[in-house]
């Protein structure tokens, strides 16, 4: 007998009538202004979010945030300050040393500052290996809470990999002292603009 069959045989059969799946309807936190909520919580989790005002140039804004960055990776056509397209590399190891990566986020969550990124670059390593990360987010795509977020995720396409990112990489493993920049990006900035 296979181990799978062994394990299944060992488990008791269900009595679904006794323990039915509950209906997941939660009256969860909502924000009068989700963008303002997102900006506030982003600061709280250490990942400054900034608003791109109507008429402002996104490349100029990013340059002002990272004036010294030279090795800048992006596959977005509108990002003209990118120094190379990371999708052209076959080996994710080559991305070590990227100073700034600029990617697109698909959905923001106001309750915790998370941004959903279904893999939209060839090497997902880019999201983590870059020293700094800029995520561009449409201001009309910020939901209130994770229930709304997962409803969106479940209904919007198939992804091989997807990640919610909320702020920079961090740890408190030495005496509970918070340190930014454990393994992933040392800074994460979400740029919220009217992209639609």
């Amino acid at each position, binding site marked *: 007998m296979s*181990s799978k069959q062994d394990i299944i045989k060992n488990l008791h059969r269900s009595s679904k009538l006794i323990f039915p799946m509950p209906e997941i309807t939660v009256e969860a936190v909502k924000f009068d202004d989700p963008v303002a909520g997102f900006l506030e919580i982003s600061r709280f989790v250490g990942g400054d979010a900034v608003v791109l005002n109507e008429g402002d140039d996104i490349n100029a804004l990013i340059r002002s945030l990272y004036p010294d960055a030279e090795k800048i990776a992006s596959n977005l056509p509108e990002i003209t300050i990118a120094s190379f397209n990371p999708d052209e590399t076959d080996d994710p190891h080559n991305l070590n040393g990227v100073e700034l990566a600029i990617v697109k986020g698909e959905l923001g969550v106001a309750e915790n500052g*998370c941004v959903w990124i279904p893999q939209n670059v060839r090497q997902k390593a880019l999201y983590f290996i870059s020293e700094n990360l800029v995520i561009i987010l449409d201001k009309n795509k910020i939901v209130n809470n994770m229930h709304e977020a997962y409803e969106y995720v479940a209904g919007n396409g198939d992804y091989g990999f997807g990640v919610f990112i909320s702020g920079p990489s961090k740890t408190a493993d*030495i*005496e509970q002292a918070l340190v930014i920049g454990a393994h992933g990006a040392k800074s994460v900035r979400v740029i919220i603009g009217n992209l639609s």
Partner: protein
Amino acid sequence: MSTKHAKAAQRFISNREQEQWHNETLWFVRQKRDNMTMRIPEWEKLRDLAAKIKTHTIDDLIHYLETFSEAAESNGAIVHWAKDAQEHNEIVYGILKQHQVKKLVKSKSMLTEECLLNPYLIERGIEVVESDLGERILQLMGEHPSHIVMPAIHKKREEVGKLFEEKMDSEKGNSDPTYLTHTARKYLRNEFLTADAAMTGANFGIAQTGEVVVCTNEGNADMGTSLSKLHIVSMGIEKIIPDLASLSVFVRLLARSATGQPSTTYTSHYRRPIEGGEMHIVIVDNGRSSIQNTTGRDQILRCIRCGACMNTCPVYRRSGGYSYTYFIPGPIGINLGMLKSPKQHSDNLSACSLCFSCNNVCPAKIDLAGQIYRWRQQLDSFHKASTSKKLISQGMTFIFNRPDLYRVLLKMAPLINRLPRFLVYNRLNAWGYGRELPRFANESFNSMWRKGKIQKDNQ
């Protein structure tokens, strides 16, 4: 009769300063958790849902395991089944050997601790690198986690500084956490870049979509899995939940309960292998199916390993993770240890004051303290009951069954107040250690009542 826990705790508290720091630091985490939950008016509703979703899933686990494995396979993952720790380790080693892996980077997984995977692989010539900072510190020290979420909570910065001087060539005498963390970042970056395979645990397995969800703050799980072609996931059968809607409930509870954050930095969803790579999921039983089969005890499988029960536990906070005989400490560890082997781990049952604080913070509403209480009732059947307590119980049974004798003894009890100290506070009386006993009243309530000394309140 002191338990192993009590004896080990005595060693822990002999360093007063460290004990106090440990206690206050974990209590601070508990307070951060409270601040988070107070911002969520629907918090109790979430806990309620989490308990119900898990209860349902555990009850119908056969269905959900099959749904999960079919979905995972159709995503292109390779699913393995392991009855026990031995088989889990053999499967993992088999995959690594087949791919001629020399170096494996791991992100935190309590299941691989449970299976003792690291020594198994190291004996067979594989270099194993833990990549969570706390885990890496302990691995270099040759020690094990003392907390499931904050593994190195018992270590001081100076100890870490010394370790890094030796292993990572850091500056002498520099024990600044930022400096040390960034030193480790540089060293571990190199490990990620030179690893042949990456291993992660799983916080959740989503039955409907066959994906595995891992939550980290450091980003170590993702550094490992996005640089290596080979990703092995080690997942207990109880990690399965039905769908993404269920996940929304657990994700909202997990980080808030664990560390008082609104969310972990990374919530990563692994559905398909990396371009040109392989993703293996090892589904592990190792005793979980027997727990699922035991009515009442099966609720322990609801645990999402947030560690909130440890942070709030007054005994854990003041005795540290190493005082427990099981590798998972605190209220959940006491229970898991008993389910693993009552004979081996019954000494941990004393590490509970039955304050029930753990029950009130558990996001899956497990009756942790109630279960501990029930285990205590069974101690005698494992021949683990304390002889002195048994003797006292027998004595009390004798007295309480004889009302006249009871009344005489009660009258005489105040005499104890006047006994010389050494007769009351000695090694026969464990309750006299470190505390003053209450004084016996000169007259009992019963006798005061009869004499009309108790006045009815006529307001």
